[in-house]
């Protein structure tokens, strides 16, 4: 059906026919456009003219008030205050010099403000608004509003400014807002919500401010106003009120958070405290912290440099970004694995001469102490490395991997904060994927040995350790950790909706769990953490840990002699009360040295605060006083 004769003449004629048809088609389309133009410009001229010329209709977006962020008791972590801005449209304001002369009689304008304003006017269109002064207080605003009629083209604009009254406290949880940047616009456009951000200048950049942006922001309203010849609004035609953002109630307890942060002093580290029955995070510490207020109006260069270049890295969210080998705090889970997988009974004794020999290599206990015959309970209480070294070949790295995975080790927890890292839960599969070279891909049996004591390739976040501890405390009922307790609509009678997460039961034998819990309870009574937990009126349970930063290869570890940054990390994990845990904690003190001396005392302070708080109608309180008196340790 496409065939044509091939003479040039016929081809030419065929082309001409088609060209004429094409031209006709195009002309008909263009006439259609002309018809459309006639419809708009002649037929409907009156209506459009009315909307544009006589009364210019301007749609003014009204930015909603951002929701507040509070702790679980309603104490405010992020709020807004109102401030006023004077804005000028130069084309409508008459002579600028004259304007300043008149304006100075009503509000104060500093020479610096004036210079900045002049510069901006020279840079942009005369029809664009330029800010004349920021931060007018209520009195100044009222005074200007009363005289506004004298100043065509000058507008008083109210806006909300974000403020973080708690400063650096819990800054890594709350995060901060900042000016909407190019990439934010792209993201909003992709999500189809850019329209809702007209009139809004800021957006959540980090922390809860970012992850809960959708709920905190609210819905932008609009004012359709008639504007007269000089651009001043005459009356509102239609108004859709903005819907303020919802308030977010964190699960964080600010008092506990403050106690935890203070306990670190000027040491670097991370701490996560979780309520096992709900998965709610009670305290979330990343030390050192920073002041989020710096970011609200755009951070200045010096502060930014100071934060960014500090060797302490205050901007890093340690509990979920820092990955560490967690050392001996891994042992309770390894012991549980041995019981559950039937590799070793709790009562079986193993000789501990201070080292374990495997493949002609000696793996030593920390400090080269020999514990003699050791069963599982003793191995956890005194933290015998040899016992766990000997478990390693029996369990095997892949079985260990499969057992630990449901506890969340090496997996993203999905907590409602951004920037989480998964870390590494080693297995032979993992190693094959992680390395390129054939001989590096191979798993060596010796590597399992260090994995079993929480060293080697293990690399977990503190959040994962806290979550696993909480799951253990909860007898294997896993609840994903989360930071928001409830969301509340901003209106006065706004409903409060609780945030709940589904639990997932890890199948464990209760008898096995009890063995581990019993041993962990004795760690704080007679084991490595006994000094830190002396005379507690409640029974805690825990495990200390010390993670190597730097391998000394047989040389004796002497904390005083080595560089502070190469010192071991001190860790602690635990929960309390031991029989019915209401709090589970994991913490690390970077380069703190021994877990028993540097980390366990911090956990003690957390447990004391949570369980013995004076305003709690808790039976633990009188017990504590009684205990203190009986041991003669009452305050002098």
């Amino acid at each position, binding site marked *: 059906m496409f065939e044509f004769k091939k003479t040039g003449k016929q081809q030419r004629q065929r082309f001409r026919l088609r060209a004429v048809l094409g031209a006709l088609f195009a002309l008909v389309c263009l006439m259609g456009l002309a018809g459309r133009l006639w419809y708009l410009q002649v037929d409907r001229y009156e209506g459009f003219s009315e909307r544009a010329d006589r009364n210019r209709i301007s749609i003014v977006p009204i930015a909603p008030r951002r929701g507040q962020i509070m702790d679980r008791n309603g104490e405010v972590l992020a709020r807004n205050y109102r401030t006023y801005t004077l804005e000028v449209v130069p084309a409508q304001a008459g002579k600028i010099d004259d304007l300043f002369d008149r304006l100075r009689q009503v509000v104060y304008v500093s020479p610096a403000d004036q210079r900045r304003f002049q510069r901006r006017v020279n840079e942009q269109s005369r029809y664009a608004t330029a800010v004349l002064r920021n931060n007018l207080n209520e009195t100044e605003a009222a005074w200007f509003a009363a005289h506004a009629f004298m100043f065509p083209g000058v507008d008083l604009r109210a806006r909300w400014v974000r403020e973080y009254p708690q400063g650096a406290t819990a800054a890594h949880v709350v995060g901060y807002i900042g000016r909407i940047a190019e990439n934010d616009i792209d993201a909003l456009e992709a999500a189809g919500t850019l329209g809702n951000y007209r009139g809004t200048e800021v957006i959540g950049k980090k922390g809860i401010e970012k992850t809960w942006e959708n709920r905190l922001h609210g819905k932008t309203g*609009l004012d359709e106003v008639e504007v007269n010849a000089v651009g001043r609004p005459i009356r509102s035609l239609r108004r859709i009120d903005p819907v303020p953002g919802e308030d977010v109630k964190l699960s964080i307890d600010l008092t506990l958070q403050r106690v935890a942060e203070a306990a670190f002093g000027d040491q670097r580290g991370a701490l996560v405290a979780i309520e096992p029955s709900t998965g709610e995070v009670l305290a979330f510490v990343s030390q050192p912290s920073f002041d989020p207020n710096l970011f609200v109006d755009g951070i200045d260069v010096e502060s930014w440099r100071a934060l960014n270049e500090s060797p302490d890295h205050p901007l890093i969210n340690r509990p979920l970004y820092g990955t560490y080998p967690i050392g001996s705090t891994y042992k309770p889970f390894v012991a549980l694995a041995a019981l559950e997988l039937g590799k070793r009974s709790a009562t079986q004794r193993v000789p501990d001469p201070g080292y374990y020999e495997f493949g002609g290599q000696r793996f030593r206990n920390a400090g080269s102490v020999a514990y003699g015959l050791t069963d599982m309970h003793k191995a956890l209480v005194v933290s015998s490395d040899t016992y766990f070294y000997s478990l390693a070949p029996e369990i095997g790295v892949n079985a260990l991997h499969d057992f630990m995975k449901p506890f969340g080790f090496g997996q993203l927890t999905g907590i409602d904060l951004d920037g989480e890292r998964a870390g590494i839960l080693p297995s032979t599969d993992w190693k094959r994927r992680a390395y390129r070279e054939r001989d590096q891909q191979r798993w060596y049996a010796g590597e399992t040995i260090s994995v079993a004591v929480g060293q080697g390739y293990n690399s977990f976040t503190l959040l994962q350790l806290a979550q696993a501890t909480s799951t253990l405390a909860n007898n294997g009922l896993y609840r994903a950790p989360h930071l928001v307790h409830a969301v509340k609509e901003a209106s006065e009678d706004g409903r409060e909706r609780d945030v709940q997460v589904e639990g997932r039961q890890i199948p464990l034998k209760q008898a096995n769990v009890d063995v581990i819990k019993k041993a962990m309870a004795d760690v704080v009574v007679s084991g490595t953490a006994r000094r830190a937990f002396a005379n507690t009126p409640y029974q805690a349970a825990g495990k200390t840990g010390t993670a190597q930063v730097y391998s000394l290869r047989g040389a004796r570890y002497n904390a005083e002699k080595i560089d502070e940054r190469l010192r071991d990390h001190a860790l602690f994990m635990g929960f309390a009360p031991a029989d019915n845990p209401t709090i589970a904690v994991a913490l690390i003190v970077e380069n703190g040295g021994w877990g028993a001396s540097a980390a366990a005392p911090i956990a003690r302070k957390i447990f004391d605060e949570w369980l013995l708080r004076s305003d709690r109608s808790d039976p633990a309180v009188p017990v504590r006083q009684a205990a203190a008196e009986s041991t003669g340790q009452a305050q002098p």
Partner: protein
Amino acid sequence: MKKLMQLGIRVLTAFDLPLLVILLLFTALGLIVMHSAVGNTDWRFAEQSRNFLIALAALWTLALVPPKMLMKFAPPVYVFGVVLLLGVEFFGQTSKGATRWLDLGVARIQPSEMLKIAVPLMLAWYFQRNEGAVRARDFFIPALILLVPFYLIVRQPDLGTALLVFGAGFFVIYFGGLSFKLLVPVMVAGIVGLGTLVYYEDALCEPDVDWVVLHDYQKHRVCTLLNPSSDPLGRGFHTIQSMIAVGSGGTYGKGYMQGTQTHLDFIPERTTDFIFAVYAEEFGFYGAVMMLILYSLLMLRGLSIAARAPTQFGRLLAGSLSMMFFIYVFVNIGMVTGVLPVVGVPLPFMSYGGTALLTMGIACGILMSISRHRGPAAGEAT
């Protein structure tokens, strides 16, 4: 002296006079309207003037290249363009949800723009090669030549450019002899489809309805077009404000530099895609129709050059480039007046932007070249 005269004549006769007059009118009009649209951000005006000079240089250069040489370049240019598109697919830079740019280290380029010329060039080359025997199966290869870059550009996604590339390529195939038996049913189906969409708008625009072939943002655009008030702060805002601007221009317009919609910042993208709204507001219905007539003259002149070209290659290339101008104008003005969805298609010679102007310059240069190298009026006499 004589040599100099000859050179002068050669340079002047490189241009097709009627086409040159139309282009000079557009240059003047483009700069006049741009001056109003920029407000007092004058650097844009200066840049646009410079863009015109570059486009003129490109036009002149192309005008001096004989069509035979263009034919030689067709396959390498096309292949190069497709390779760059593949480069975008795998190494492109993403901005505003679309991957259109390729960073070559020296400069960032947008290869899809190149295909607007390369696709018709390649197709015209193909039909010229198979001049004598155009059979059914000879339309499968052109379809492939057209659809590969089209698909790659749609994936970026860049609907506006994809539309233009498709249109330019389609018209080559059409001029090359695509059967009306095939064409008419497709057109009827298209009209029926559009009718359905308009009629069942409410049901189809429900948020849960998935349109399978279109991205969500494209669906959003279509729905906003059908009912602009559904998104008054977002996309609908553009269409509503530009319709107000056009409509309030009335029969005679508000006068040069007097457009309130323009100068009070109501028209979005007023120096680029929506510049027709600026023009229509200030010059009114008569002005707008004059511009449509000027564009028609441009297209008709192009088609007449095509009709007189001695080779099939020249005819098809000139014909499709002329029709491409029509597509540009129709889609852009349709979008500004609210009858077509908002896709990024500039208005030729009016919209701000160096790349678009350069493409126009090259297209016009090719038209000039085909016009100039008409050769002995072969076949005309027989």
